[in-house]
């Protein structure tokens, strides 16, 4: 392991690997990535894998639609020898209350103004897209055919392989124990395999971003909470889009492999707990058999849990901080880091290298200073 680098990135998830690749692709090759276990072993590899552009704030819409364009060309851009399995089967968002219908109308107007061609649908139109959807209590839905899902392990691997080819050093099974600072400047990282001195340290630690910030003596208003998922045996293709309900707090997609993957937002206390619970199994089964009745015949083969790292407005915190020079953050993704990792990598790299980027205003807007100024961007559409 190197003992000196220009940039050290803490976290070998999709965010850390995307930032590493974009730094190297822009000429900054003296980069080290540190990962406590294996690549995508944390929040990335445990996520629902969805890639949607139907968001309720301008920032999330722009981050996700820019990222979707990257996913479309990712196998070629990163010269990946595998396949990131990006499938644009769309996202069908379903509304069961008047309040949700109103929110969906606002969201579609915003999305359309930003070039995202989402549509407002009646229950019958929604059922044409997903024939096994129970529309009995449904009031309306929205659909965007360019949304979809990708494989988080392969996306992370694709970024990591491309970064390595450009000279980035990725150290797995390496735990960060501390962050070195002199006055208000960061100077390096202490790991269980030795120290690395570096003028720039990036916190891309996902569910543990709060722990890493604390090591640096930087205050972040973020915390982790457990979210759970289950997957069924594979069956023949029968569901194109991801179906998502903010009312049931659930989402459900059929993967290219044929299995159905579904998750649920629960009311839990902040923690780093990632053991699964039987209560989830019960609540998930109750809700999904009501929403998508034929799925009751599918066998569950596995359940697991991962961490959402929540920010106060459910929108990420990107860029540097006045508290500590050289300390960069890409944290607080609140459950949608995977789908915006491509744009996050581009913008963070541009910021670190002082390059121009047409969407650079996003970084200034989503800087941590927004909380002190009270300029929040509350995302209404999160499961």
């Amino acid at each position: 392991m190197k003992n000196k680098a220009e940039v050290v990135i803490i976290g070998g998830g999709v965010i850390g690997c995307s930032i590493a690749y974009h730094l190297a692709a822009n000429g900054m090759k003296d980069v080290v990535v540190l990962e406590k276990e294996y690549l995508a072993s944390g929040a990335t590899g445990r996520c629902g894998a969805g890639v949607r552009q139907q968001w309720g704030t301008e920032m999330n819409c722009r981050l996700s639609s820019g990222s979707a364009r990257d996913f479309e060309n990712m196998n070629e851009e990163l010269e990946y020898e595998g396949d990131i399995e990006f499938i644009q089967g769309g996202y069908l968002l379903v509304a069961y209350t008047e309040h949700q219908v109103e929110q969906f109308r606002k969201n579609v107007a915003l999305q359309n103004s930003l070039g995202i061609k989402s549509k407002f649908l009646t229950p019958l139109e929604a059922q044409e897209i997903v024939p096994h959807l129970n529309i009995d209590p449904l009031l309306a839905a929205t659909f965007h055919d360019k949304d979809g899902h990708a494989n988080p392990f392969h996306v992370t691997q694709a970024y990591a392989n491309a970064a390595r080819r450009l000279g980035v050093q990725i150290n797995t099974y390496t735990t960060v124990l501390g962050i070195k600072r002199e006055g208000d400047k960061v100077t390096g990282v202490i790991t269980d395999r030795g120290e690395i001195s570096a003028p720039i340290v990036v916190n891309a630690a996902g569910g543990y971003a709060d722990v890493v910030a604390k090591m640096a003596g930087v205050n972040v208003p973020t915390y982790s909470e457990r979210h759970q998922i289950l997957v069924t045996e594979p069956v023949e293709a029968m569901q194109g889009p991801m179906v998502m309900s903010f009312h049931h707090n659930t989402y459900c997609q059929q993967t290219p492999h044929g299995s159905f993957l579904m998750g649920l937002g629960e009311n839990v206390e902040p923690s780093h707990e990632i053991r699964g619970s039987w209560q989830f199994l019960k609540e998930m089964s109750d809700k999904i058999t009501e929403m998508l009745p034929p799925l009751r015949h599918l066998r569950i083969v596995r359940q697991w849990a991962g961490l959402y790292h929540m920010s106060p407005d459910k929108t990420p915190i990107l860029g540097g901080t006045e508290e500590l020079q050289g300390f960069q953050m890409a944290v607080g993704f609140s459950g949608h880091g995977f789908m915006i990792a491509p744009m996050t990598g581009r913008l963070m790299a541009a910021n670190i290298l002082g390059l121009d980027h047409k969407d650079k205003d996003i970084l200034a807007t989503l800087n941590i200073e927004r909380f002190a100024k009270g300029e929040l961007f509350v995302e209404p559409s999160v499961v």
Partner: protein
Amino acid sequence: MSNKEYDNTIICRCEDITRGELHRWIDQGVTNLEELKRLSRATMGPCQGRTCRQLILQEIAARTGVPISEAIIPSYRQPLRGVTLGAIADMKLDEEEKPHEK
């Protein structure tokens, strides 16, 4: 056994993963089962690795020279056996057992 037969032997029969495919991943540096299963899908089918996990650990050990006793073993995840969503949904729970409502 010819080389082709040796490579084409299916190790993970739920996901149709051959020995040759596992070797290709191992040779790329994916040398523990945690990473190998996520990239290749081996052990992730209906039997959840109950048939192939030991075979794959043997293949990794033989290919890398690292003994199985030092191998990284992934978590076993619930449910222990495949069970339908309908069977769980139809279960009636006593009042005190119910998951908290949102």
